[in-house]
């Protein structure tokens, strides 16, 4: 028998009596999700802004100091101003000196400021969310959900799929519990809610 069969046979031999699956609790709604989301992004170390439309978004992003850095990538359809053509890059290692990327999110989560970014968005290089010095995330107001349970109710992963929640900038507290922003990934994370 190979290891797979050995392990599965040993597990079956334990004859564990099946236990039914529980129901998930229904979360208590706590206030306006958009307001809460904007607050949560700050709690997790990011900056949050609300803009009425695409034109206001472009203007607001353009006024961010990080957006004046030379190497910028934008994956947000309504956001011009990128200087790096990701499609032209073959090897993600060439993104090592990327200053900032702007990425659209599918969902925002009010309880923790997390933004769901799906794999198809991160083409052609997944690294585009973690390798730049700074990150800008854009999410529509109507796509803000209350909590993670609601978020997972909406997420569909295509086959084969990839996706992640990003909640604020990269951080660590591994040295004497002191919170330091910018461990390996983005040193700052600005989140824009449009609408």
């Amino acid at each position, binding site marked *: 028998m190979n290891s797979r069969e050995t392990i599965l046979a040993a597990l079956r031999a334990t004859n564990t009596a099946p236990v039914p699956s529980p129901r998930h609790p229904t979360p208590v709604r706590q206030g306006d999700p958009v307001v809460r989301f904007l607050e949560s992004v700050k709690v997790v170390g990011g900056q949050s802004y609300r803009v009425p439309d695409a034109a206001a978004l472009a203007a607001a992003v353009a006024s961010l100091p990080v957006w004046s850095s030379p190497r910028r990538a934008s994956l947000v359809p309504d956001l011009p101003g990128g200087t790096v053509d990701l499609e032209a890059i073959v090897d993600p290692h060439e993104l090592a000196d990327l200053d900032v990327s702007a990425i659209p999110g599918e969902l925002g989560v009010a309880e923790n400021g997390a933004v769901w970014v799906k794999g198809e968005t991160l083409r052609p290089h997944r690294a585009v969310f973690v390798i730049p010095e700074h990150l800008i995330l854009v999410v529509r107001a109507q796509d803000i959900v209350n909590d993670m349970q609601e978020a997972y109710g909406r997420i569909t992963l295509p086959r084969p799929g990839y996706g992640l929640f990003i909640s604020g900038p990269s951080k660590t507290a591994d*040295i004497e519990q002191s919170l330091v922003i910018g461990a*390996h990934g983005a040193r700052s994370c600005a989140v824009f809610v449009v609408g």
Partner: protein
Amino acid sequence: MIHDHPRKAEAFTRDDERAHWHDKALWFVRVKRDRGAATVPEWEALRTAAEGIKVHTLSRLPDYLEEFERNATRNGIQVHWARDGAEHNRIVHGILERHGVTRMVKSKSMLTEECHLNPYLEGRGIEVVDTDLGERIVQLAGEPPSHIVMPAIHRKKEEIGELFHEKLGTPRGLSDPTVLTEKARQHLREKFLGAQAGLTGVNFAIAETGGFVVVTNEGNADMGTTLPPVHIASMGIEKIIPRLADMGVFTRLLARSATGQPVSSYTTHFHAPLPGGELHVVIVDNGRTEMLSEAHRRKALCCIRCGACLNTCPVYRRSGGYSYSYLIPGPIGSVLGPHRDLAAHASLPFASSLCGSCTDVCPVKVDLHHQLLLLRQEVGEEKLLPLPKRVGMKVAAWAMARPGVFRAGGRFARWVLRVAPFLARIGPGAIWTKGRELPQAPRESFADLYDQEMARKPEVRP
């Protein structure tokens, strides 16, 4: 072996100032956990659901593992099975060898610690760089992690500055965490950019979708899996959950329990290799099935490695991670270690005050202090207790079964505390009074007061 924990803890507590500092640092995290939990009104219902999902999954584990494998394979993930640590290491090495990998970056995985992967690969000419900041610190120091979430919690910033000076060539005397983190960022960037493969642990593997989730705050798992083309993920068989929707329950509990954060910075779902790359999952048993086969031990496999039981444990906080003989310290390690090898870890069930705080904070409701008590009984049954303790237990059992003797003993003890308290500081019983203030001895015992009260009100006497 039975003196293992107290002996090592004695070394740790000799530096009184450091022991208090360690205690405070962890209590700080515990307080943050409480604040995080308090923001969720349905917290207790979530714990119950998380426990239920885990217990359900463990009851049908072979089915879910097969479902996971089927779906993962369809997603283009290569699934491997390893009976033990040695087989796990051989599989990982085989993959790396096939790709000619000599430099690998790794994000946190307690399983690879359990399998001793790093020395195995280093012995075969592969550079393994731990990329979580705390893990990198202990790796540079040549130490194992002293905490499962904060591996370098036992080290002071000045010591880390000295270590970086020695190993990374940074200027001498650095101690600002921001500066030190920046130095580590630059050092590890080079490692990420130079790596030919990345290895991660697995926080949750989802049977329904055939993918898995890795959670970090630093983004190190993401750096290590988006740049090199080969990604290997190591998981214990107990990491399976049935459905994607179950993640909604676990993500609400995990980070809040671990650090008090509402969620970790990066919660990444892997369901396919990088375009043109390879994704391997190694499913490891290494003694887990044996633990699963006994109902009273099964519960410990529900653990999601948040570290909350360590942060709250008065013994862990005051004795440090290195006082524990098992690689996972604190209450959960004191359960897992003896479940694996009782004789080797016989002291661990006693490294607890049985206060039950670990059980109260556990997000999946592992009955930790009950398991510790059961393990104490097993240690006793296996005759692993030292003679003085065995005799002491016999005497105590004899006295407690005889109310007259018990009361006389109590009177004697109170008399000693009043008349000659120094007697409590010498002799074999002194171990109980070391480092403690002696209590004020009352004139009467509880039993005396009870008798007096009952004599006054005979009608309430049961």
